[in-house]
């Protein structure tokens, strides 16, 4: 079995994230890392490999600037067999539509894949649309937002906590799978894993390697534009009271009444 797991390099959500002057995400000035939500995708890919047996190979694919190779390295350290980093200046500022194009072409070249695994969203843009777009471009079934994943041969069955119902989704490989943070704790790279990762194959591809025209991606041809980015004004410091002899509840009730909530 051939598994491709898509990973994104994102600015650290706990850092002070910023935009560039052209309103794209600052991916250089802020420390980056493998998107936490993609760690769950790597974990599920590894679990499926472990269950399927020896002839299964897991390849991590990442699109991003030079530093994004760190995300691929982390995936290798966690246990994937091979890494591919698609890097090209022309990609900068791409929207989800263009990202899905590059990803689809990279996955095709890396494949043929039986299973393409993604996280539920990136922690920067948080759109949750790339797995669906990827499935559309590759004309594959999408089995997305899985909180429990089960495979048997080429059959995949997942639990999906939908908007109004909990569903069981079934499909036959090849398919695009996305997993949530409920799917199972992601493993930490072991010392052995970190050492082994240094010897694993890690390829760097440009757009021409995967047959994507540089004119079809990037900020200038994005199908959406961001006109303005405004930092939210800091919240003005509120009133904090200490609860003593039920004074807290009284003060809280008065506050809510003054604000007309009761």
């Amino acid at each position, binding site marked *: 079995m051939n598994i491709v797991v898509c990973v994104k390099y994102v600015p650290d*959500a706990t850092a002070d994230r910023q935009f560039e002057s052209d309103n794209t995400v600052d991916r250089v000035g802020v420390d980056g890392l493998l998107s936490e939500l993609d760690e769950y995708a790597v974990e599920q890919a590894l679990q499926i490999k472990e269950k399927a047996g020896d002839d299964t190979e897991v390849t991590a694919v990442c699109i991003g600037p030079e530093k994004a190779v760190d995300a691929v390295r982390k995936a290798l350290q966690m246990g994937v067999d091979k890494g591919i980093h698609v890097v090209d200046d022309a990609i900068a500022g791409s929207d989800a539509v263009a990202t899905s194009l590059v990803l689809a072409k990279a996955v095709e070249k890396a494949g043929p894949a039986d299973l393409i695994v993604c996280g539920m969203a990136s922690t920067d843009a948080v759109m949750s*649309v790339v797995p669906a*777009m990827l499935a559309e471009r590759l004309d594959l079934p999408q089995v997305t937002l899985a909180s429990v994943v089960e495979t048997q041969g080429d059959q995949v069955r997942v639990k999906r906590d939908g908007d109004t119902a909990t569903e*069981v989704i079934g499909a*036959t490989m090849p398919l695009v799978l996305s997993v949530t943070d409920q799917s199972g704790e992601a493993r930490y790279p072991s010392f052995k894993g970190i050492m082994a990762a240094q010897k694993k194959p890690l390829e760097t591809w440009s757009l021409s390697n995967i047959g994507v025209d540089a004119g079809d991606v990037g900020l200038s041809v994005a199908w959406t534009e961001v006109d303005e*980015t405004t*930092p939210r004004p800091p919240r003005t410091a509120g009133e*904090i009271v200490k609860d003593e002899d039920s004074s807290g509840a009284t003060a809280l009730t008065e506050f809510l009444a003054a604000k007309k909530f*009761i």
Partner: protein
Amino acid sequence: MSEVLVLIDHVDGAVRKPTYELLTIAKRLGEPSAVFIGSGAQGAEVAEKVKAHGAEKVYVVDDAQIKGYLVAPKAEALQQLAEKAQSGGGLAAILIPSTSEGKEIAGRLAIKIGSGLITDAVDVQEGGVTTQSVFAGNFTLTGKVTKGTPIITVKPNSAAPEESAGAGAVEEFAATISDSAKKAQIVASQPRKATGRPELTEAAIVVSGGRGTGGNFEPIEGMADALGAAVGASRAAVDSGWMPHSFQVGQTGKTVSPQLYVAAGISGAIQHRAGMQTSKTIVAVNKDEEAPIFELVDFGVVGDLNTVLSAAADAINQRKD
């Protein structure tokens, strides 16, 4: 005037409130045409509801070929409706509820019809200018779609629903669903249990509990009921198995933006803040006065949530009598 397709958000024909918000927004962009993908037998009843909120047309797409499969068939149906509208009087935009399924439908549709996509809009104004809240609510973006027909997914509470009668002309539409769209099968479906409380993402008031509850959500629920609020939970409470994932507020759960958000026993990690930071008024109860949640609040009580919330709920209930 060009049509604006609005995908109706419903559960077995029961129209959900965000639909009316979308119709209100649609009127700013063109002529609202509501799209009902559901049981054809319920079409007339649904049409009456959306008509009262300004739908000029109501497309009824019977879901016999659609309901058993995830996402893809709905995207195909919308693609065909979009093409129909385009070849008619024109299509100004497609508005879709920002649910997890809605966003995925929008994603596939964007590729199919070659149009730009904006997700999680909190406002859409004339000319399709959208507002989004990003980076855990720390930034506000304005932008627009620049190619094709704007596809915009809109979050709940992004507009006050306005009642205004539209023509509500019902048109049955037979979508052709391809075999390749019928490959991800919904094998089983368990509707979420009704809680009797408002829907989390739609509620005007949300009361959430975290690790500090120690697993006892009674004070949270008591306070929620006193305020007519929805109940939410932090990831810590969900990971501990105290509350189902559908209650989770935060980066990987629901994003809420109510008039009032009460966080009890929640420290306020960035992942939680991402889900509630844009709430109008924020109140916290936490026994740790160093908890980062207190940096966000309009009003905070340092104390035990069990005693504070129980006493406050009693006081609120007494005021109502």
